[in-house]
């Protein structure tokens, strides 16, 4: 099985996590079924998506939306639902 995940000999026993402050290492993007796809033409950079995103996956630079960090985006669709400009569309991963 080549998943890129470590085997049983290389992980701490009993599910222990031996370092503190490591949630960034858990890439929740693997949970995603629908991906938010942004239409930059429609986006007004109001940053509503940035405010609502529960995973801080909306990356902002100079007060403008830069990109959506797909390593952590779970595809919950809150950004698409909240976007006043309807600039975000949720697209099924398999159809991309």
């Amino acid at each position, binding site marked *: 099985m080549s998943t890129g995940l470590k085997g049983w000999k290389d992980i701490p026993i009993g599910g222990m996590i*031996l370092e503190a402050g490591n949630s960034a290492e858990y890439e929740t993007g693997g949970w995603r079924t629908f991906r938010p796809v942004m239409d930059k033409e429609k986006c007004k950079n109001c940053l509503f998506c940035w405010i609502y995103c529960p995973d801080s996956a909306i990356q902002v630079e100079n007060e403008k939306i830069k990109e959506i960090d797909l390593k952590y985006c779970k595809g919950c669709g809150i950004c698409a639902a909240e976007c006043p400009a309807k600039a975000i569309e949720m697209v099924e991963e398999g159809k991309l």
Partner: protein
Amino acid sequence: MGKQVAMTGNIAVANAMRQINPDVCAAYPITPSTEVMQQFASFVADGKVDTELVTVESEHSAMSAGIGAAAAGGRVMTATSANGLALMWEMLYIASGNRLPIAMMVINRALSAPINIHGDHSDEMGARDAGWIQMYSENGQEAYDNIIQAILIGESEGVLLPAMVGMDGFIISHSIENLELLEDKQVRDFLGEFKPKHPLLNINKPITMGPLDLQDYYSEHKRQQAQAMQKAKAAILKVAKDYKAVSGREYGFFEPYKLEDADIGILTLGSSAGTTRFVVDLMREKGIKVGMIKLRVFRPFPIEELQQALSHLKALAVMDRSDSFGAAGGPVFSEVRSALYDLPARPKTVNYIYGLGGRDLGISPIERVVKDLQEIHQTEKIKELVTHLTVRE
């Protein structure tokens, strides 16, 4: 050398606990194990130990408190019986899954219903898949020796598993026997100081225990547990060797008795081994080549070692002091028979369920087993695979 004393199995175990001096003990009373904790509570009250004794409101809480204390980095012990062990059920798996080497004395008792307080193995056998090391004791001496060794086996490098030691309720727990206690210092030197590998209380190295573990890693952690059980085999033998150097008493996975030249054999565990040994001697006087094997370690199950020890037999009876209703016999039988399956030549193997709810296994039922085995040996035919012995028709 140690001290020769006369005491019950329970008091012997309480004294082992006094000498072990665990950091934390959490327990709830249940017959027939109550006396262990009652005596140990006196040791605590009298200042004989440094143990923090937590008197909880149930066995579920006893094991939960023990898990917390062991996770914190303590050496933790408890004792229970029957329904008490059953109430610990989900926590048993959490102790082993979190790899916490808790040591527990199980004073074996029948499970209700109908309610019964006497000795059989249905409690501990029911917990055989819980990921705990399991040992059984023939008498008070073995219970004392086993619980001391259980501490180090569970704490061994590469093992880190909880261990339970069984002792037949009332038959052993409440019978006074002549036995030898080690000196307190001998036990403390033998065990040494417990150095937990990943203590939660180490504030310089904060860790997380028991986080959510889903499809991506749970299988790997269970694979680790399987490996730890395999590693426990070497640890059991090493601890036994070191213990022999201190006590002079020898232990292994099992103890054969007059087995080498035997044609037929009886495999048993717990207190019935004493009676079986007596019957073996009686039969040997009559020229019947029968032997016995007393199983001490049930988890990890010593498959290869049993294959070697039993392969020369023509017929074998496996004695179970608990039933696994609807299974292919009792739990010991299923595993022993499975272990023998791959041998090119193997004994014809039958099962006897006996002694449930503390019913005595006297001499005559074992004589009957020997007679059955002789017939199987001669005819090479098994009439009844599983027999309920010591039951009225």
